[in-house]
């Protein structure tokens, strides 16, 4: 079956794909000889571009990352307009779209930044304004770096002593279950690790193409990467009525349906959840592991919010820990990759791009390929690696910086817990908005009831109804949120994701403005 698509209405330039080799080549020969003829006459042919929407890798067109999508672009534009003095019904844009704590005024942990400064400019090691424990950490990190400098390349898998420290941290966290530094890969944020593993696992064609199971709603890095890699996205729905919990029967249903058209081999889970904020119970984690074992699925556990747990009765259980406590029947078999990062928790150091992944039970030959794959991007940023080291090797009782460190850490986490509660409370007072408890992470993902007329108007514009809502919200109040359609949701339901990161006072104002807006919007479109 041959088809030729003309990109530019010009006899010379045709782009062809979905053609048989022969046809493809024949056309190119024509082009070449024509252009040769032209140049022999002294004139270069008018050329269409080599890289156009039609010649571009088609997978890229499916890539969508709502967190930084069109609504954010509009927000940035509005900020510019405000700076230029344009009059608006608000004075500032509140960017509650992205999980960036420092941007919202959270202070960095003093100890971490001191060590980073010492690592970068070692002359400061002679400065008595820096505490001894910070200096010792800095010296240790520098000794492990090539040329004693944080500016040098590191090995692709990451600085040795950092990987050792990460392994020790995991062991301590998981009650003594051993962790091998060889299974630790430092990454450029958790995203880098997640995409790398997906790359490694994506293979096959058509019915044998790799299927990746991901929760709906999900953090759109997953959908974007799956689209980019040309893997198949398999949605399993979290249960909104039960506080976004995970039902094994739903996993089963989605897997069965997927087996008709692809080869499911990966199960991704985000715990604590983004955007939903749910913290999985230990029982649930065991059930998921059992399911993955039975169905031969590679487990990817995104645990970047592991310190962000607020609700009473909730606790973080790492997949690794639970896996090992389930005995050798599972712990020696189930393939698992767990991810962590410096961007969230109490650190909020997104800009450092620090992270790690721990891989368990990976086939040694596949692991060798993984090591090769990470070598392509040479190495993760050294400062990010150093910061990761400090996160897993933070001040201990007795050390000079311990008290200040704990004070700062506790302040951040308790403020977040307070804001989580506040957000849930205020949003639930709004008729038409219903908000599940924010058990963990940094977001709330409330359900909004949209009037029929607004839904129709949105559809007429070619916009998702919740995008239409969020755009209006932005234009009228300056509040920037991400519509639920960017994360996935059950058909016919609408949501938005907002962060709980603005300082408490600003958050209160923001929530009240939202309340006002929703009531106004509902009235306007009723």
């Amino acid at each position: 079956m041959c088809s030729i698509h003309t990109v530019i209405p010009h006899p010379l330039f045709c782009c062809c794909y979905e053609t048989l080799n022969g046809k493809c080549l024949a056309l190119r020969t024509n082009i070449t000889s024509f252009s040769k003829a032209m140049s022999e006459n002294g004139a270069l042919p008018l050329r269409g571009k080599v890289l156009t929407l039609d010649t571009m890798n088609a997978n890229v067109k499916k890539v969508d990352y709502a967190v930084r999508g069109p609504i954010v672009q509009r927000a940035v534009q509005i900020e510019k307009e405000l700076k230029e003095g344009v009059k608006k019904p608000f004075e500032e844009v509140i960017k509650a779209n992205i999980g960036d704590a420092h941007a919202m005024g959270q202070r960095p942990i003093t100890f971490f930044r001191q060590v980073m400064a010492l690592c970068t400019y070692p002359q400061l090691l002679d400065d008595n304004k820096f505490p001894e424990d910070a200096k010792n950490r800095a010296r240790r990190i520098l000794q492990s770096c090539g040329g004693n400098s944080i500016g040098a390349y590191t090995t692709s898998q990451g600085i040795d002593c950092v990987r050792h420290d990460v392994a020790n941290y995991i062991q301590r966290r998981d009650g003594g279950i051993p962790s091998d530094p060889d299974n630790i890969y430092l990454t450029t944020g958790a995203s880098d690790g997640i995409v790398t593993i997906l790359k490694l696992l994506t293979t096959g064609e058509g019915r044998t193409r790799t299927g990746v199971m991901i929760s709906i709603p999900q953090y759109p890095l997953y959908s974007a990467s799956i689209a980019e890699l040309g893997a198949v996205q398999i949605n399993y729905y979290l249960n909104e009525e039960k506080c976004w919990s995970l039902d094994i029967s739903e996993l089963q249903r989605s897997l069965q349906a997927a087996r008709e058209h692809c080869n499911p081999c990966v199960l991704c889970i985000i715990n604590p959840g983004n955007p939903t904020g749910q913290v999985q119970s230990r029982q649930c984690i065991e059930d998921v592991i059992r399911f993955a074992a039975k169905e031969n699925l590679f487990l990817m556990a995104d645990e970047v919010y592991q310190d962000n747990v607020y609700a009473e009765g909730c606790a973080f259980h790492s997949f690794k820990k639970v896996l090992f406590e389930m005995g050798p029947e599972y712990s020696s078999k189930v393939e698992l990759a767990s991810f962590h990062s410096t961007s969230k928790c109490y650190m909020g150091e997104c800009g450092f791009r620090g992270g790690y992944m721990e891989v368990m039970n990976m086939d040694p030959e596949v692991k060798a390929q993984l090591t090769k794959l990470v070598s392509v991007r040479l190495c993760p940023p050294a400062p990010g690696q150093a910061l990761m080291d400090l996160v897993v090797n933070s001040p201990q009782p007795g050390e000079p910086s311990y008290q200040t460190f704990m004070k700062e850490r506790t302040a951040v986490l308790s403020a977040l817990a307070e804001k989580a509660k506040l957000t849930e409370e205020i949003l639930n007072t709004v008729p038409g908005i219903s908000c599940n408890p924010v058990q963990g992470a940094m977001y709330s993902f409330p359900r909004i009831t949209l009037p029929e007329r607004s839904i129709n108007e949105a559809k007429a514009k070619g916009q998702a109804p919740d995008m239409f809502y969020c755009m209006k919200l932005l234009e009228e109040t300056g509040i920037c949120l991400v519509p639920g359609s960017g994360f996935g949701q059950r058909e016919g339901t609408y949501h938005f994701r907002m962060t709980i990161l603005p300082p408490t006072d600003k958050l209160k104002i923001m929530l009240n403005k939202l309340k006002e807006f929703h009531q106004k919007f509902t009235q306007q479109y009723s």
Partner: protein
Amino acid sequence: MAKEVSECTVWEIRVMKLMGTPVGDRNNWSISNYFYLQVLAACFYPALLEDDSLPLDVKQRAESLLRECDGGSVGSYTDSSGITKIKHCVSQFITRRDGGVPSSPDNIFIKSGSQTIMLKLLIHSKDSCQTGVLIPVPTYASFIIALEEQGAAIIPYHLCEEQGWTLQVEELRKALHTGRKTCNPVALYICNPGNPTGHIQSRKSIEEVIRFAAEERLFILADEVYQSCVYGDDTEFYSYKKVLSEMGSTICSTVELASFNSVSKGFMGECGLRGGYMELVNLDPAVKEYASRLFSARSCPPVVGQIALDLMADPPKPGDPSFPTFSEVGEVFAELPGISCQPLKAGFFVFPCLHFSLKAIKWAKKRQMEPDMLYCLRLLEETGLHVRPGCEYGQRKDSHHIRFVKADDFHISLFKIKDAME
């Protein structure tokens, strides 16, 4: 060993002894110029801005960079293609480098690893007609892996070793012709200055390549990360963008080009910071929109790397308090007997000329070694300092050089030598 030492001239021993500042186990060279390190440290830990010890230009630069960060913190996310002000700085750097050819910040994407994103756009990995990329032989291994990872067909073209690893268009033509039999070539990858060859394309060669790409409808990927490392009297780096801009309106407005540069190799050598950028020329605006999306799905480039890029693109100028650290090196050498050094204009290496006594030259000959090689070995043994001999890089017959990195302790040791000599 001791016997060999006694055969050196008194001068040589003195220099060697005085050069012996402790460097610990520093076995990889690295750049350490105070200005950059101080700015980075102050950005990490802004309490340092209240420190009296930091020079004014350091404080001002750190403050201005922190102002561009959300919440005044280098821990915040930034725009996916990089901080706007830094992109402006980079575009100005490019314009200066290219003698005035305009550069727009909108066409600049800060990201180390931006080559992978271009490959992702260009390559269809599932096509019946596999996308091909022309690459030079030899080329560095991780780029080959990157191509394989994307599912590209690799079309090798050979560089001509006999003529100093030059690029011959005829060879390109041959390779393309062969490539067309089995795949759909869309891009031509150039590495200039070359890795690992170290060769630099002449202006004429660049023009020929651009013309070839125009005729054969190829997207040019110009890897120019070594552009600051240019040695030798007759060599000059020409950017593909500059040459393209001077080739007549048809070519300069149609040939699609992506140029890559980084802080890893050039001026600063701060590889671990992962700062780099890509400049796009003549990219279809609709495709650029998708390029932006790919960048946004990757969050943002590390802020520290972005800052390093800013410092590379806009280093201290004459008159700035931190400027003397750069030029003093040359001046100090000028005052040392037996060593002379050309004024340092660029790069991060110092390549002074050593004037050995006849005795020293004879001594080296007896050991069947180049005098500068022997000097370097003695220096390493005596002081732990690691410098490279000029014979590894090429020099005129009977002249001897050493190459070393402008590092802090050299700065100190140079002054020590100077003081001792006086």
